[in-house]
């Protein structure tokens, strides 16, 4: 069983009755590292935003991203229906959905820019402003709230040195409140970028933040980076 860098990221090795590794619980070994251009078009619209270095000026869409964009278009009867996956893809490349990004996506999908703005602002996951390297989303909805979620949120704000919703000066963390993340059996559930951190308690918060910053430097930071077995990430 692989050693976790800190206790209780929510796999059953530390909670519950099952004797499993992190990879086994998250399915990381099963998933592997999918190529940037995606695999079968059927699954292309499900990709998370991979955390390469974000480039707000990057061209939409080039190379493997263009391939993924084309694959997405084949799955829907209208170009408009590809809007959510394409906005996801654009956010993956540029880090957030700026007005320029909305305009460019509108152009690509033959929609009006105002329409794209209307759709992009409806959904919470499209960042309208740049966010820190680690977007920390703490669930404070009822099940986690009953088990101390608000203290966990306070702990994140304190230890990251952030105001809620704002990015820290060094660009490391943005801490926000999230609605139910569907991890209610593992309170408090925190989503950081694309990974769920479950069973988070106030005590663990400083170590989580430290771990996030020290595991930087690898090509893919988090989320899909989790697809690499823990040992490969060079953690002790």
């Amino acid at each position: 069983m692989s050693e976790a860098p800190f206790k209780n990221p929510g796999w059953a090795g530390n909670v519950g009755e099952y004797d499993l590794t992190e990879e086994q619980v998250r399915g990381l070994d099963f998933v592997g590292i999918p190529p940037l251009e995606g695999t079968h078009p059927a699954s292309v619209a499900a990709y998370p935003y991979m955390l390469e270095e974000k480039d707000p000026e990057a061209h939409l869409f080039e190379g493997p991203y263009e391939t993924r964009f084309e694959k997405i278009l084949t799955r829907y009867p209208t170009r408009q229906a590809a809007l959510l996956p394409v906005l996801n893809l654009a956010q993956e490349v540029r880090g957030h959905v700026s007005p320029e990004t909305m305009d460019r996506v509108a152009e690509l999908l033959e929609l009006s820019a105002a329409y794209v703005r209307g759709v992009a602002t409806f959904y919470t996951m499209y960042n309208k402003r740049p966010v820190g390297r680690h977007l920390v989303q703490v669930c404070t909805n009822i099940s986690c709230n009953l088990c101390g979620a608000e203290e966990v949120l306070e702990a994140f704000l304190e230890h990251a040195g952030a105001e809620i919703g704002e990015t820290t000066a060094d660009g490391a963390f943005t801490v926000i409140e999230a609605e139910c993340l569907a991890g209610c059996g593992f309170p408090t559930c925190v989503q950081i970028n694309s990974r769920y951190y479950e069973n988070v308690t106030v005590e663990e918060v400083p170590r989580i933040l430290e771990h996030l910053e020290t595991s930087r430097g690898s090509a893919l930071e988090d989320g899909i980076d989790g697809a690499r077995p823990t040992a490969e990430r060079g953690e002790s």
Partner: protein
Amino acid sequence: MVTLTIDGTEIEVPASTTILQAAQGIGTEVPHYCYHPGLSSPAMCRLCLVEVEGGPKLLPSCTTEVAAGQVVHTQSESALGMRRGVLEFYLANHPLDCPICDQSGECDLQDYVFEGGREHGRSREAKRVFGRDDFGGDVLFHGDRCVMCTRCVRFMTEVEQKPLLTVVDRGNRSVIDTFFEEGLQQAEWAGNVVDICPVGALVSKDFLHKARAWDLEHTESICPNCSQGCNVDLHTRDNLVHRMKPRTNPEVNGYWICDYGRSRYEWLNRGERLDAPVVRIEGRNDAMGWTTALTTLQERLQERASGRVRALVSPFWSNEDLSAVIRLVDALGGGEVLYRSPRAEEEVPLAGVAGLARRRDLAPNVRGAELLGCTRVGDDEGRGGLEALTDHEGVVLVLGDTLDEEDEGFAPNAELVIYIGAYGSTALSTADFQLPITTFAEQEGTFTNHAGRVQRFWPALAGPGAARPAWLVIGALSGALEEQEGPSGAGEAFQVVTEMVEAYRGLTYDAIGSQGASSEAPVPVAGD
């Protein structure tokens, strides 16, 4: 056909009628915001909910189709209670700034709350504030007053088919906006969102704080700014036109008018008017009364050498006026009757409405002039083409056109220069006779639109001083020359028109009514 009962009244309507439409048929207006007959029905304002016996919930009457034997109550306790409840939510964050809101007096929120809302608000909470947002063009948006009916968004998307408006954000943070600062610049029909906004969220910048709705008189008229002939209402107060609003006509303009037309009414209020007949005697202009002026003119016409008449008319004047001039020309031995009209490079269609466009001819009665046998001259600015008149030695007669580009002393070689116009003209200030007439807004009459449809308008303003309709004074003059009475009413004057134009045979003012009537005139092949 389906028979149902609404508020105790049994009615029969076609099968796919909605309950709301059926109720309108018996004069019951169910309160509503998001429904509009020219747009889709999302049933989201929740104001039109009515009780249908036997159902578990109240149903939205704007989308629920009638069913045989349905028993509907729009004023039952549950319907009224629901309405009161929903209205309370509408007011929860409303600024209640009626004293400074232009919509006051024609506001659906005011009316519905007055009729069926609570007397006092129960909210003790701070209101959310959006403030004012200039959408560009003539449209100003006040987010706090908005009831989120999305009529404006749907108009731009479905009717103009330029989706420039959207709802931004969600929940009670949602607000109408454009794509950031892009605004409504590209739109040509955006003014209609101000009309369809049920509250004062979207207002006209041109009309901002100009007049109170209840002070305005509405007169049925026709937009004079192109040859589509959109039906409008002129809203006036103190003998000034303050705005032009579309009047519904399914055959011509549906529910809409374009921004180009809507914004061009100020010329009806222009001050430089001829208000008394003027006769030029020995280089001096003398004002005098009509009788003297017309008698003098009649004598001069009868005394003249029999030179031909060359006339220039304006397509901004009615069929009745134009036909009176043509009859006069005939009575004087005949001659050419010309007209000029500004003309745009392109049409500006409204994509979602077949047959509706801002036409190339930027005057209301071009077709009318053509059908009466007038010949077009001049360029697309409505200038030039006056060669036939400038050196003419006979009678020069100008109706309406102010010859802006010409200098004083127009047609110096003419035996007689007669200007029958509403506005002062430098070129014609030296005319032998200047006869003051009313604009179309100051008289009854008809225009014929590009498709040959004859449409009536009514007087919204009082002409200045001694100004009179051209058909009246010219008709009197022709009559005197032929020793008979001229027409004494506009309807009679129109009969004269129908005698001159084959395509109008059988038309009468009654037949035309306030929605117009097609004539037999063949529809032009290309857009004019």
